[in-house]
């Protein structure tokens, strides 16, 4: 594959990832604030962002640490929040499974919702892309995000106490995720999957340790797959 093409998918990735800066920055700042208020030192806060690289799971861990939950429960619960990453990993495998092991490890380390969502959307649109082109797109998408994630975690830890609650930073996470989901709702099967997952997640909100999230995700995937099958059958009959 011509080097220009790999370079161009890298820049397409950068353009796909860049909009998320707007939401990742408040998210990173918020984590810095929350961790500092829970009693984390600057180094501890930074280490969480650098080694765990998972906003929602980090928030869960800090929350449970400040409630003095047992360590094993904290790790298990926070990982449950992150279990969707295993599903992302599986869904990227048909596209990136033949990449060199080191590159696959790097893809895994840098896997965040935004990078996954941008990448899978583009891979489905461009099945003709080579593996280097696909990798270039992925690393392009995380390039503007990962460094800023680290930097703004520190900013949050340093200036955190000065941000007033009127800024409603809490809602940065839901807005980002909703903005990512809506354009993905391309077919009736996607819509059905999303609606079922919302219903199950709300119905199981009382279940401890975020286990309801896992049930809801699985239910949504099953419904999506079944609706897709039904639509295929109907299409074949018509």
């Amino acid at each position, binding site marked *: 594959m011509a080097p220009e093409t790999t370079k161009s998918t890298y820049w397409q990735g950068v353009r796909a990832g860049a*909009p998320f800066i707007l939401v990742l920055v408040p998210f990173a700042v918020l984590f810095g604030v929350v961790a500092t208020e829970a*009693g984390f030192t600057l180094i501890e806060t930074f280490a*969480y962002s650098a*080694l*765990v690289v998972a906003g929602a799971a980090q928030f869960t*861990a800090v929350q449970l*640490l400040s409630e*003095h939950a047992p*360590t094993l429960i904290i*790790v298990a619960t*926070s*990982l449950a929040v*992150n*279990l*969707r*990453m*295993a*599903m*992302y*990993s*599986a869904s*990227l*495998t*048909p596209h990136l*499974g*033949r990449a060199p092991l080191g590159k*696959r490890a790097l*893809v*895994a*380390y840098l896997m965040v*919702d935004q990078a996954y*969502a941008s990448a899978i959307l583009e891979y489905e649109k461009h099945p003709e892309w080579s593996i280097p082109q696909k990798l270039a797109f992925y690393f392009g998408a995380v390039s503007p995000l990962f460094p800023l994630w680290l930097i703004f975690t520190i900013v949050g830890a340093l200036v955190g106490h000065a941000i007033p609650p009127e800024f*409603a930073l809490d809602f*940065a996470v839901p*807005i980002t995720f*909703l*903005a*990512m*989901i*809506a*354009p*993905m*709702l391309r077919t009736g*099967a996607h819509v059905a*999957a*999303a*609606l079922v*997952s*919302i219903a199950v997640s709300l119905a199981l*909100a009382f279940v401890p340790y975020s286990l*309801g*999230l896992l049930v*809801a995700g*699985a*239910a*949504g*995937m*099953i419904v999506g*797959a079944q609706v*897709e099958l039904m639509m295929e059958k109907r299409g074949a009959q018509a």
Partner: protein
Amino acid sequence: MREIATLDIWIVLIGLGVGSFGLRFVFLGLIGERPMPPWVLRHLRYTAVAVLPALVAPMVAWPPATGGTPDAPRLIAAFVTIAAGLATRNVLVAILSGASTLYLMLYLLG
């Protein structure tokens, strides 16, 4: 609230760091180039649209910032974000619409 043992922080960090990487690497690393059966792929196509809404729904319905009480500005902002995302298919437009709606509604109703 503030007295978290440093040891606990680091034990959780290491457990979470290793576990988190493991979850992300499990399929990419272990399955490699072996093809996966069509029924698996069919389910995986719906991962994002199933897991992300499940993650967000409780945050929208019962925002922690309001102590878990449903909140009109946040509900309206969530609705506008989805509508803008569906209409424009553009993530950035959806985010900006949602955020500006949130601030406007917090100003008007908050």
